[in-house]
């Protein structure tokens, strides 16, 4: 019997309509807009100015603080300006606008497809290189990867968990990457295993991707430390704590990081990016983006230069269907609707999903009938109905007592609610308020 996490979870239709579409490089646009804050933590500081000539892979903004990440140019050309651009949430962020000229790469970057297996660097050098390459978690949260590998004193890791679950409906970027770049990805996993200083690495993949499970099981045979774990399909298995539980049986306590139970988790896309940087000197300047939707004429998986507009990706997939009600950045469960298609693809953009109008409307909100569905689907064992009540009544202390901050915003509660109540929206408000109050307490 295949493994999974034991409590809560839902089974939305997976709708992986782009699963058979091979990864194709998207044409380099005439202009890219590269945001300086594409990661969790402080935005990077620009080191180029308008008029500067840059090459693809060249550093254009440096880390600003412990949790931050370098930003590199994804194209060659001239810096047009440094100006604001909207992120998927609609907030303005500083970005470097570059007018594209040709496709010239910075010196030392190996763009060939030759597989380089031999790992020559040691732990410290690998982590340093990951930091230099501006690599962040590619699964969605965009947490700077090098920080995960700086293990706090007193903690030890023994297992690296690699996330090939891709439990979000529609998204297929990780699936295609595992199929088409299995060798590179496995070297990347091996590099991360060395960087973490552990013997074991487990790649967790859900059963709806049997081809990836088969291929990686075969190919990982030559790596002593790497095993593939076939996981029973269940959302949100790609969530860090749920994945660790499914793959190792360990439970990361409330408010703690995976290292508490000796684990570090990285996405397959991150492993691939690590390979590119450590073995081929190529920083994180491109990523696989699934561009999909039920009415999209060519659901695709594109290899996209960071900074390319959403509009260009959508155009290449056959254009925006007339009946589109919402364009989602990411998957339908955790992604967010974007208001502007000129915004750029960033390091964390896993997909662009176009939902038809009929699927874009929120259901009418009805009375809570106390059915308990939200409680039984919550993978963290919370009481969403109660957290909603507390948030509506500004009862932040009670919301904190009932562990609102354990919520990782998977959205199972809102999905399961038969009365169409926006449970997660209220829990987010409660989380924000609780965190503000904690910060205020800490600064007193």
């Amino acid at each position, binding site marked *: 019997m295949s493994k999974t996490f034991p*409590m809560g979870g839902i089974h939305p239709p997976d709708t992986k309509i782009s699963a058979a579409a091979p990864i194709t490089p998207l044409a380099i646009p005439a202009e890219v807009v590269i945001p300086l804050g594409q990661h969790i933590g402080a935005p990077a500081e620009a080191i180029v100015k308008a008029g500067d000539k840059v090459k693809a892979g060249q550093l254009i903004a440096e880390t600003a603080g412990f949790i931050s990440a370098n930003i590199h140019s994804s194209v060659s050309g001239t810096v047009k300006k440094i100006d604001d651009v909207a992120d998927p949430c609609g907030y303005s962020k500083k970005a470097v606008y570059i007018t594209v000229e040709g496709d010239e790469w910075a010196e030392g970057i190996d763009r060939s497809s030759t597989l380089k297996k031999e790992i020559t660097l040691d732990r410290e050098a690998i982590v340093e290189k990951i930091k230099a390459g501006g690599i962040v978690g590619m699964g969605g949260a965009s947490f700077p990867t090098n920080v995960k590998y700086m293990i706090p004193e007193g903690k030890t890791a023994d297992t690296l968990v690699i996330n090939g679950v891709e439990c979000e409906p529609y998204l297929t970027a990780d699936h295609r990457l595992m199929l088409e770049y299995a060798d590179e990805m496995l070297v990347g996993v091996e590099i991360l295993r060395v960087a973490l200083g552990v013997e074991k690495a487990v790649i967790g993949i859900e059963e709806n991707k049997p081809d990836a499970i088969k291929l990686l099981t075969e190919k990982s045979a030559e790596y002593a430390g790497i095993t593939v774990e076939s996981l029973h399909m269940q959302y949100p298995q790609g969530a860090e*704590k749920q994945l660790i*539980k499914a793959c190792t049986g360990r*439970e*990361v*306590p*409330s408010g*703690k990081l995976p290292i508490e139970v000796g684990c570090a988790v990285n996405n397959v896309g991150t492993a691939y990016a690590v390979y590119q940087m450590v073995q081929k000197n190529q920083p994180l300047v491109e990523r696989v983006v699934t561009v999909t939707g039920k009415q999209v004429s060519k659901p695709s998986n594109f290899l996209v230069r960071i900074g390319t507009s959403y509009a260009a990706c959508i155009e290449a997939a056959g254009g925006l269907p007339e009946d589109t009600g919402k364009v989602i950045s990411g998957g339908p469960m955790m992604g967010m609707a974007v208001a502007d298609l000129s915004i750029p693809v960033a390091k964390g953009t896993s997909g662009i999903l176009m939902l038809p109008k009929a699927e874009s409307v929120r259901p009418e909100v009805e*009375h*809570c*009938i*106390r*059915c*308990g569905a939200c*409680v*039984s689907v*919550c*993978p*963290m*064992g*919370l*009481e969403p*109905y*109660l957290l909603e009540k507390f948030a509506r009544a500004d009862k932040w202390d009670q919301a904190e007592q*009932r*562990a609102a901050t*354990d919520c990782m915003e998977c959205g199972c509660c809102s999905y399961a609610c038969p*009365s169409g109540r926006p449970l997660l929206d209220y829990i987010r408000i409660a989380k924000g308020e609780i965190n503000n109050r904690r910060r205020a307490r800490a600064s007193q």
Partner: protein
Amino acid sequence: MWAVSIALIPAFVASVTFFGPRALAVLAVGVLSCVLTEAFIQAFMLKKPVSVSDGSAVVTGLLLAFNIPVSIPLWMVAVGGFVAIGIGKMAFGGIGNNPFNPALVGRAFMTTSFAAPMTNWRLPLVFDGSTGATPLGIIENAASTGMSAIQSELPGYFDMFIGNIGGSLGETSALAILLGGIFLIARGLIDWRTPVFFLGSLAAFTGIFWGIAPESYADPLFHVLAGGAMLGAWFMATDMTTSPMSRNGRIVFAVGAGLLTGVIRLFGAFPGGVSYAILIMNALVPAIDSHIRPKRFAQGALHEKA
């Protein structure tokens, strides 16, 4: 809520089969009085959109009618329906806000207001539909007379299972209730734990007494099949609004209702105790919800810290 009405169809068919066309009239008045009361209050008193199309008032009407004898005057059914919806549900703010099961509120009101007609039990049509005691009524004084003295009056288990016994309209056929209950579980609309722990704890409680003194007490299978235990366990203790939110909470609720049913049946003034047992547990739901919380992720680590 319409799915619950569908699940009640077998019991509906059984009640009409065993108690005849008058059962239809009682059911119709039960449903109509509940639906009209809700519509009237929403339209004219609250001046809000009428929401009877959600089907929940229909379920209340059906369950109320299932809980009363076929011989009851129809105007009393209408009063019961009015109380069930008006006081049991709408007075608290309508769907989702009522602490007590509305059908049971209506029944409790009728039991105290119309004591004689509410206990004027009829036997099924195959026995001419004449007046007769229910199985629980027959054993009420078993502790003093001894079980062997009344054994000949008791129906067989097969008759109790299919519902060929005296009692309220919809409570007699365990088979029909079971069919509907399995449908609800298959549709994911009720938690199997509620009926299983309800009937299990009733059987365990009555089983202890039967084990000690079989001459004075009926056996656990009898108690599970008799009276309103099946209907209560499958259709009333499982009411979403008036039962706890967490799985563990629902287990506590069901065990409490099962034990209280046993206590009332064996030691109380009434032969049957299901409806009062459920109403008492309904009152405890807020306390259960605040003390019996769902199991958190990494619960073990939480305890270590504390």
